[in-house]
């Protein structure tokens, strides 16, 4: 084309526009729009495989719940629905902030874009932290976080770890999956199967949350460099899609694990 675009510096000038305005498309795409649509479709295909990944785990849950219903009812009693509810709220808020960050990119609100990405990351880290500190560690090893309200129900053995950060309650721990099971006061002979399903489903989900933290961090760094704007925010869009699938999985996991009796 022989049009002279003064915004791009004219003939022989320097293109001083920010990255997101300069970006056109990768060479194998014909237009910017085709690139966006193609990438988004590809992401949806990947999300379909993610749903099937967790679907397999839900099938395992369903099969074992059908075979050992008392173990499932028992197992659910060990889980505190309050932590599950808190984690659900944290993830829903993070879903909102990641959707807002896409909106910010579309409106070229660079500051808010970074803030919303940061809030999403903080929520994700909080989710994993709550899960590890208040759910996994006490059940696996018997060590309660010193601020855990449930600690008051049990006699503290006095043994602590990490300089008083964690307190050991004798006999509580050992709720581990399958062959690693060693909890002495289980009520049902098949309880180790419940714990297997619990740890696998929530563990793989938590791994996905951690992967999401990495992706969001990558986005945050790129946002700082001005890569995203109204005409180019594909990466924000697809990481947002990934994050919403992770949230959706938790929306199903929470009632199925925590709210049976």
């Amino acid at each position: 084309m022989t049009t002279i675009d003064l915004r791009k510096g004219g003939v022989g000038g320097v293109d001083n526009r920010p990255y997101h305005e300069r970006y056109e498309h990768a060479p194998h795409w014909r237009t910017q729009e085709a690139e966006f649509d193609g990438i988004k479709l590809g992401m949806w295909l990947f999300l379909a495989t993610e749903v099937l990944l967790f679907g397999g785990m839900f099938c395992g849950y369903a099969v074992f719940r059908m075979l050992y219903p008392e173990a499932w009812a028992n197992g659910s009693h060990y889980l505190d629905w309050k932590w599950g509810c808190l984690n659900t709220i944290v993830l829903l808020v993070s879903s909102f902030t990641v959707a807002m960050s896409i909106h910010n990119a579309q409106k070229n609100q660079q500051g808010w874009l970074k803030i919303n990405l940061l809030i999403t990351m903080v929520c994700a880290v909080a989710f994993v932290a709550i899960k590890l500190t208040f759910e996994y560690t006490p059940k696996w090893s018997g060590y309660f976080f010193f601020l855990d309200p449930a600690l008051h129900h049990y006699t503290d053995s006095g043994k602590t770890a990490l300089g008083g950060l964690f307190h050991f309650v004798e006999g509580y721990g050992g709720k581990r999956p399958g062959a690693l099971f060693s909890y002495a006061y289980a009520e049902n002979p098949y309880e180790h199967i419940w714990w297997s399903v619990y740890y696998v489903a929530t563990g793989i989900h938590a791994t996905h949350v951690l992967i999401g933290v990495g992706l969001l961090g990558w986005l945050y760094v790129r946002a700082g460099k001005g890569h995203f704007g109204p005409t180019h925010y594909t990466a924000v869009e697809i990481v947002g899609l990934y994050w919403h699938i992770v949230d959706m999985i938790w929306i199903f996991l929470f009632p199925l694990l925590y709210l049976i009796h």
Partner: protein
Amino acid sequence: MAAHAHTPETFDPSDPHHLIAHHGHVIIRPRTLVAVLTVLLVFTVTTVAASRGEVWFAHKFDVEIPQIVNVLIALSIAVVKSVLVAMFFMQLKYDNPLHSILFLFCLFALALFLFFAMTDLGTRAMVYTFKSGEIQRGGLGIDTQVKDESGHVLRGVDTGQLGIVAWARQRRIEEIGNQQSQGLLKPPLAPGETAEERWEKEAAAFHAAHGVQPKPPLTASTASKHITPPPGPTPDLYTPDAMLKPKTGEHEH
């Protein structure tokens, strides 16, 4: 700003009068997103309330509510929440319908998977009880050891012939016995009390602390309705002709 198609501020020098209509990228209003978040949070509270309410209802009126009610309520609320997340946060409502079709097909594939797996397992005992047997065997965690070629145990514990849950219980009872014989038990066993009884007291204390009423131990009548068939070949299933003993009076010619 309306949540309809809103073309971004791009200037295409090959089409300066914007005669070619491009599919705009939809910008959703923050108000819509906040509304969806609020509804999702309300549904979260609803699902927890429904679950606790069901427990309260069953306790107050002393009725037994079948498990399916709990599952249906929880899953239907979860489905509504997921639809909201998909349609608004994931923008399926404003997107190319191909994405919706793709996602729905994936859910259909998942439904097919679950349907066949569950109906197969769920109906195995429907006509012939012996057919449900094989699934019931195992699952107790009796043989959990991983050995290498020479027979060295790499991982796992030797539970004897106990299930792993029963093994953990036995180990605690032995531990109490050992501590008592070494004089390390605090507080000590009362005279006449055995390690077993001490274990039962500790178990009751743990279950009370967690708000669980200890259930009576499973017996044949109180156990799950699945029936474990006796071992060995199924009687009267098939007897070859050669093994049939002639019945009295049968061979009268």
